[in-house]
């Protein structure tokens, strides 16, 4: 009993901080999403679920969520798989492995603001590196504006984000690979299993915990990304790279619709929560079965 109370006393301060910094703003956001507050006025009305009805009939919201879905899908396919492949290759001790690990991980230490500035320069139509390469080896008149054309703006940003995220996936998988049991691999090899079979049937199942972390972080990172989009396109041109976070910012702080922006934020939270909840639940069930 004494131990239990002592634990609560130690937890008191962190819980207070957590309550003030995390729980209170979240509850406040939920409450604001039920109001028509403009973010400035002292008075506002409680309007029930009207903001949520607005959100689900708003073409801009549908556009933003569509862009987020594309982002999640590409993020789950490209940096995750690439990170795994790189981790497996580098784990085999290829020459210069430490150098390659450092280089691939390097973008992770940059903030998204720096990443945005770097890729703004790469995608610049006249003097950007990408177009210069295309002009050198292909069309000398090429001056495509990657971030300013609605067809490519979103994909160009996701590519830049993938460039950074691959390093994180690789490091997480490398950590996972260090815990893979070599005796099982040896046993499989003695039983006549090929390289592909060993990877998919022996190594990959042991990387399940790493995969849980990678997939969760990938989904969360792709849904919460704001900085990179804001630095590169601000959701433009004409909302073609708008995501939920930039929509939330635009409506709350620039269009004076804090209530509506809070509704967008709450929907984003619910989506992230559902994704993470179901993923963890399925994984924990499997653990239990084992």
């Amino acid at each position, binding site marked *: 009993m*004494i131990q239990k*109370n*002592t634990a609560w*006393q130690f937890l*008191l*301060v962190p819980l207070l901080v957590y309550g003030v910094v995390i729980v209170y703003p979240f509850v406040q956001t939920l409450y604001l999403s039920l109001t028509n507050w*403009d*973010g*400035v*006025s*002292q008075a506002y009305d409680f309007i029930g679920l009207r903001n949520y009805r*607005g959100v689900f009939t708003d073409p801009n919201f549908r556009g933003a969520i569509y862009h987020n879905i594309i982002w999640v899908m590409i993020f789950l396919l490209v940096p995750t798989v690439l990170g795994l492949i790189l981790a497996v290759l580098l784990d085999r001790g290829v020459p210069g492995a430490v150098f390659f690990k450092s280089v691939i991980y390097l973008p992770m230490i940059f903030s998204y603001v720096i990443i945005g500035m770097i890729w703004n320069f790469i995608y*610049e*139509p006249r003097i950007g590196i990408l177009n210069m390469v295309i002009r050198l080896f292909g069309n000398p008149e090429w*001056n495509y*504006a990657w*971030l*300013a*054309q*609605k067809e490519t703006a979103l994909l160009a940003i996701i590519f830049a984000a993938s460039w950074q995220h691959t390093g994180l996936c690789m490091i997480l998988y490398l950590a996972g690979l260090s815990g893979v049991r070599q005796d099982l691999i040896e046993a499989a090899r003695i039983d006549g299993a090929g390289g592909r079979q060993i990877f998919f049937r022996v190594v990959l199942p042991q990387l399940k915990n790493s995969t849980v972390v990678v997939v969760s972080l990938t989904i969360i990172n792709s849904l919460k990304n704001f900085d990179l989009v804001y630095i590169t396109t*601000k959701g*433009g*041109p*004409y*909302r073609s790279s708008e995501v939920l976070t930039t929509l939330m*910012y*635009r409506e709350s*702080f*620039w*269009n*004076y*619709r*804090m209530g*509506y922006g809070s509704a967008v934020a709450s929907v984003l939270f619910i989506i992230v929560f559902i994704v993470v909840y179901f993923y963890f639940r399925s994984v924990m069930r499997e653990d239990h079965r084992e």
Partner: protein
Amino acid sequence: MKQKHRMLLITAVLLLVTAFAVFGAAEGDQKADQPEKVTFFHYFSGTLSGGMDDLVDTFNENNPDYLLTHTPVDHEAFKTSILVMLSGGNPPDLFSYWAGARVQFIVDADRLEPIDDVYEEYGVSELFSESVQNAASYNGHKYFLPLTQHFVAFFYNKEVFDKAGIAAPPETWGEFLTACEKIKNIGVAPIALGSRERWPAQFWFDYPLLRTAGPEYRAELMAGEASYTDPEVAEAFGMWKELIDKGYFYPNPNAYDYAEATVLVGTGEAGMTLMGSWLMQLDDQIGWEPGEDYDFFTFPAVDSGVADAAVGPFDGVVVAKDARNKEAAKKALVAMAQTEPMIAFNTGTGALAPNINVPDSMYNVLQMKIKEYCAVVPNWAFNYDLATPPPVADVGLDAFAEFVDNPADYMRILAETESGARAAWSNL
């Protein structure tokens, strides 16, 4: 149990120490022998912050009872921070804001203190022209002290115009089209537009509409009393479309910002840009001299029956309704309105100082021409994003950026703009 009590005691002591630290500091601020602190939060950062340092220093030297402190932040950080401060009931005493629809919005939200007394009792009204004072008035009261007045016009590279054989800047739409054709013929893009941040494109809607439908119709559209599907709006877009169709714009406007577009004009890769007089802040970067290397001309007349109108924004300062030190804040405003601080703040910015007593010697040759034009132009209009409420302007600014890429689709874009604007109006 003893251990439990000790823990509780430690927690209680910690909380008490924190409380004393917080409230003690607040009390310490109230000491009578200290100068009263006046806070000023603004977006005059970067090249403009030097002028504001001078202005604040001058005020503090002349008013030892007060300590005016200012915090410059960039535009984007300012937008969010000021809303948080206002809504949290902890605003700065003074803050900068954009005259027009944005000041109107926070006036309607009851977050600003009227400053009629600043204008009337302290004689500030004698320092500003009537048109400037109109920009300071909202709902029948003065709320805004203008610090800068900028003007939007065509700024052009004189060498390019000479090479193209353009003897005099165009005064009519026909002459303008001829000039564009001549520039195109020497292999230079006639017009540079850098609409990556959307707002630079708005002037291409403001001026054609003002020159064809006139200031009154535009005021109706900005107030939601006219439709974006009206023939007047379609005609303005039609003029803009004609220029795009003829290949007069430098490619990919949405890829560049206004400074990059200005640099294109400076380097002679483009002939002109429709931009505000703040582009003069880039003089050193581009290395060109106003009047010698570049000049300006007003947007050409299209219909001689339509009254002339100029477009441009005013930036200035307001007093928060919840300001802790309103009297001192108002005194600071009175000080800012005087001639010397106005000179200190506006020199080198390209702006006109709203104070009528500033000497002409502070202006370069282009600013002098702008001043003379502004003195006679019968109508002054705020640019689009300051003339219509922010959520409506957001719809329109997207439409301009889309139009730049898809001019052929302009009727669809206008129909969508109208439905988006209607939805925005209904939420206001």
